[in-house]
């Protein structure tokens, strides 16, 4: 397999797998600055509806002004939240970070999470669609997550880039022909639009989908890349193929990762997408006890990349503070020597780091065509 032109993308998780995230801004600021010193593409911070710990998007917004270049990608859940709020929060993260935002789409399938929300009949509201209570099966909430990602994209596009005109002669602040009702009707919700937030700096913040979930297969089931994928896993993969800019796959060897990448790109093509627009990162747990481990990691990443296993890597340190400093001090210099990592950031946005173009608003495109 030919080696791609762009060096491997490199991201790191800030959450420790063992401990719940803590409401400690200084802790996450220090980690993100470290990752930025290593010129990584982005950091992720996990979350789930119902905690524990602080809201991941809040944490990354809190540290945005204390960093300058690193991409910021919180997990945002879509099952018990309002799609409109999800879209405006992610767009706002892009505004406050000046174009460095992404989000990892996640769902909630447990009864415990459903029990935190509302009740079946809600006074006075004209309810539409599925009730968020009780818990729904994984396949259902993943298909809904796909719709949330779709409507988020439409809302981000609903203000064309040049909608704000400030035309003193006519007294018009915006050109309302460049603002659009999205009029989205999905299976479980509808949104009229337009967004209340102007189009964010990246046009569309980067959408990340963990295509395999955190237990090998979704919901503790078998990995969808081995054996027969169960329903929820297949729906998760479809969302990654149809909606993600970046898909994460958890795989133990380069062959499995490479097969997953090929499968995702094939599915993306089936959705009418350019498969090159979907970056597949191998998501790897790392535990670096020594400097030798850090060097070994550089070898492993170089080796996997040479084999075409992935477009890059998402590292999940066992102990973020320790492992991240080993990565930045030990692994990063070796990757740079081998031409596998930038020495300094050339761009300022997450899309620029990833080599992804800034998309045009679909409404602006439609106007050009008509």
């Amino acid at each position: 397999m030919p080696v791609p032109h762009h060096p491997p993308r490199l991201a790191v998780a800030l959450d420790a797998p063992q401990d719940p995230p803590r409401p400690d801004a200084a802790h996450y600021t220090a980690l993100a600055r470290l990752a930025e010193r290593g010129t990584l593409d982005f950091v992720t911070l996990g979350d789930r509806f119902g905690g524990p710990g602080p809201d991941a998007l809040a944490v990354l917004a809190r540290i945005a002004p204390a960093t300058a270049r690193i991409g910021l990608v919180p997990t945002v859940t879509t099952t018990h939240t309002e799609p409109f709020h999800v879209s405006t929060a992610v767009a706002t993260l892009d505004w406050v970070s000046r174009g460095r935002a992404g989000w990892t789409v996640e769902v909630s399938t447990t009864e415990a999470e459903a029990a935190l929300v509302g009740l079946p009949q809600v006074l006075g509201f004209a309810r539409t669609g599925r009730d968020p209570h009780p818990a729904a099966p994984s396949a259902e909430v993943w298909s809904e997550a796909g719709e949330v990602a779709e409507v988020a994209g439409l809302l981000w596009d609903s203000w064309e880039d040049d909608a704000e005109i400030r035309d003193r002669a006519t007294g018009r602040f915006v050109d309302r022909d460049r603002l659009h009702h999205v009029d989205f009707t999905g299976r479980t919700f509808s949104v009229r639009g337009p967004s209340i937030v102007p189009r964010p700096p990246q046009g569309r913040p980067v959408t990340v989908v963990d295509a395999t979930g955190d237990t090998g297969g979704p919901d503790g089931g078998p990995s969808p890349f081995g054996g027969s994928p169960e329903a929820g896993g297949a729906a998760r993969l479809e969302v990654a193929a149809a909606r993600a800019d970046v898909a994460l796959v958890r795989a133990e060897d380069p062959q499995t990762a490479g097969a997953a990448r090929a499968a995702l790109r094939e599915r993306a093509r089936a959705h009418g997408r350019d498969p090159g627009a979907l970056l597949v990162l191998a998501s790897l747990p790392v535990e670096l006890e020594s400097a030798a481990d850090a060097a070994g990691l550089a070898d492993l990443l170089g080796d996997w990349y040479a084999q075409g296993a992935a477009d890059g890597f998402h590292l999940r340190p066992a102990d973020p503070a320790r492992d991240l400093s080993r990565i930045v001090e030990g692994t990063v210099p070796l990757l740079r020597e081998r031409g596998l990592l930038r020495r300094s950031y050339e761009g300022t946005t997450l899309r620029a780091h990833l080599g992804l173009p800034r998309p045009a608003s679909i409404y602006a495109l439609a106007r050009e065509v008509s």
Partner: protein
Amino acid sequence: MGTDPRPRKQIHLAAHFPGVNNTTVWADDRSGSQIDFASFEHLARTAERGLFDFFFLAEGLRLREHKGRIHDLDVLGRPESLTVLNALAAVTERLGLAGTVSATFNEPYELARRFASLDHLSGGRAAWNVVTTSDAFTGENFRRGGYLDRADRYTRAAEFLATARELWDSGADGGVPHRVEHRGPHFTVRGEFALPRSPQGHPVVIQAGDSAEGREFAASAADVIFTRHSGQEAGRAFYADVKRRLPAYGRRPADLKIMPGVTFVLGDTAAEAQEAAVEIRRRQVSPQTALLTLEQVWGVDLSSYDPDGPLPEIDPDPDGELARGRVRIADPQAVADKWRALSRAKGLSIRETVIEATGRQSFVGTPASVAHEMDAFVQSDAADGFILVPHLTPGGLDPFVERVVPLLQERGVFRTEYTGTTLRSHLGLPEPARPARKD
């Protein structure tokens, strides 16, 4: 004043990021972006330099429409409140950070967690302005759709806030969260809130909404009221009415601060300030805005009228629904009659009438006269302080901080340094007691 036995009240000040209405004069060379983070940072840093209690963001969950099209004359487009406030926590140290978030289009668990996160990440500076978005128009952006009647909106808001407080109180101590079992007409919430209690105990709660239901809700549960009653007389009546409601809830007058939203115009002389105020009003009410304002009252298309000509003789359509996303005018005929009388008596054009009838500049004068007036307002119990709404983004607050704040400090009615680190301490509010555990 010298014989007044009471100590002089300290003035509370907050800064409102100019919102999406015609207070903001965007057609001015000094007008910057309403959406770039730099604008929020500038205004927040100015407010902190001025030792303000808090910075305030409004919320609107749907772009307003007029005659079925998006309203295009005023500033529009704004960020999601909590995300901006979290980012502002990184560039300020003491300033309170207040976000308006609707209790109608959110759920208690999620919002309690988001506000507790802000309170932790800012070191105890969070405030929530609990509003009850009133229209089905806004509901079209949400899963639940629709809307609630006023009575239901406030019962939902009250139960929403009570549920959030149960969750905040249940926070994990020493790693062990307590289970919450809330059952009410609006919500059933069962589970654990796995965040430690936040630095202020509970974020500060602000209420904005003037109806009897709104006032009662504020008296029972809010720490601050954001009101539009900014005149001396109306202010005193509102103040007395709200404070009178407190004892029924076992609360003292000092437990609820009343802060009207006010504008200001400063000049080196009174005449200069007056002149500037007139000019600002003309810019706020362009010919297009004047006609649109009239159409909102009349409920009919008036685009054929000349903004510099006389008011229409036709009567308003009481069922006319040209404007969406605004609070509806209760009695359009009465407003129209009043405006026509004003126009006839003073010989005013449409635009001049709108300027005169909708004028709401609160403090116009020299820095000294504004400081004096504000102080008199607070000492006479028309308010406990003010939420300042500048007409320029983001530099509109700078002259106030540079010229008026020092005079308030000289009068001994405004702090000369922050003495606490939390918003509750700036406002002189006690930390809510942690309820005794049932388990």
